[in-house]
């Protein structure tokens, strides 16, 4: 937890923030509308005496009264998928339409890919990319369990992503849910910060800049790139956006956010970032009882 003290200047009610980080997360799933509707899923849960609570902001997100959603019929049928509440946000912000061409640049293990595919009614093309074979096998397993037929899986370094294997010139939308120091998932994995170091944060920030840059290049003019992480470090969030704004033709745009959030920070430890990074949103564990998260929406201008 000591690592998190560096964020004290950024977080309101820091004590509540720390207390939330020590609590375990509620058991939350997303309903996979490719296979079943929300109402039928609820009826099936009721038949098994599994209680649930709705989330107002997203009817496909349910909190369950069981820590083992995998032991239910809706799970067996691929109607639900365990996905932390705030992790359902970036695909919603990306808001793909049916028939579009979408890249999920760092896709494994595939929860967000599946949500993107569902928002597209399993039509168009979702390219789910990751560079790690083990994580890709988890992604493929999840995609098939959830019945997705519009997903093509590639294994590339997202910093040099080639569109050739999928025969495209550009994507309509790209999600960069970047590999990060994962400070925000401490509620799920309390040992996350044991290996934390500033040099790791700085190293991963370099990788993130490369991935976001390539994502913008691979998106058509007028297209959308969503950048998200599950970490609080401005080095991995606003600094990465600032770098993209300098190097590529894009701008940060506002988005509707149904969850309680704070604006992106424009100043951190002596560094100043482009003022438009304030349009990004920061999600803290004590505000919505979720993990920590960062999300930004970019429009490609050139």
């Amino acid at each position, binding site marked *: 937890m000591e690592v998190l003290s560096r964020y004290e200047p950024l977080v309101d009610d820091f004590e509540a923030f720390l207390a939330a980080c020590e609590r375990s997360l509620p058991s939350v799933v997303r309903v996979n509308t*490719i296979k079943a509707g929300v109402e039928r899923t609820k009826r099936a849960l009721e038949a098994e005496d599994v209680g649930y609570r709705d989330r107002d902001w997203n009817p496909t997100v349910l909190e369950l009264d069981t820590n083992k959603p995998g032991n239910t019929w809706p799970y067996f*049928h691929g109607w639900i998928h365990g996905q932390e509440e705030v992790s359902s946000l970036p695909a919603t912000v990306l808001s793909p339409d049916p028939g579009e061409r979408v890249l999920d640049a760092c896709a494994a293990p595939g929860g967000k890919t599946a949500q993107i595919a569902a928002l597209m009614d399993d039509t*168009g*093309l979702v390219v789910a990319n990751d560079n790690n074979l083990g994580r890709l096998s988890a992604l493929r397993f999840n995609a098939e369990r959830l019945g*997705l*037929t*519009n997903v093509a899986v590639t294994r590339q370094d997202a910093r040099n992503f080639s569109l050739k*294997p999928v025969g495209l010139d550009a994507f309509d939308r790209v999600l960069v849910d970047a590999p990060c120091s994962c400070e925000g998932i401490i509620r799920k994995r309390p040992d996350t910060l044991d290996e934390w170091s500033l040099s790791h944060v700085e190293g991963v920030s370099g990788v993130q800049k490369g991935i976001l840059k390539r994502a913008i290049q691979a998106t058509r003019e007028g297209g959308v790139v969503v950048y998200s992480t599950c970490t609080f470090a401005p080095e991995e969030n606003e600094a990465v956006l600032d770098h993209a704004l300098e190097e590529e033709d894009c701008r940060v745009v506002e988005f509707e956010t149904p969850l309680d959030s704070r604006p992106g920070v424009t100043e951190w430890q002596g560094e100043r970032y482009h003022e438009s990074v304030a349009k990004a949103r920061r999600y803290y564990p004590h505000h919505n009882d979720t993990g920590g998260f960062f999300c930004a929406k970019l429009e490609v201008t050139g």
Partner: protein
Amino acid sequence: MSNSGQRFDRLPETDEERDLDGRATREEVVEWWDERFGIGSEKFAEHTFWEKGAGKIWIFHDEVPSPTEIEGLGMKFLRTRQEHWKPTTNAVQRFGRGATRNVIDLDPEQAMAFVRGEDQEIEWDGDWGYLIAAHEIAGEREPLGVGLYLHGELRSVVPKGRRRED
């Protein structure tokens, strides 16, 4: 031209377009689902079919160049190049809801045993071979997966990673 375990090749539409021995055609695949389960070709009108490795057929809801060297394309759908073609559990769950033939309805106890991977003695006076096992959930029939019916016994072929534990 040969078959490759590293590459997705699109299935030819018909026999006339086939240039690789033993490769199924789109027409055969679609007809098989209709004959075996009564699932008509309209269900697959927007899908393309691909072979990767010997007889592993994938279903994909879009166009990409063929052949293509990537890790996955839609979902594994069907095993051909063997005496009896075998659909995958995931394909049956996704597309089997409208089946009108060769569906075996299981009661709650049988359904649980089936998804645990157990073989069961069950009366069935229909065809032998690969069946869709189904049960009722939330008021409607829902496919559980693929069963192999032989000699009075329904064998569960639900893969280990897809089984349900209670």
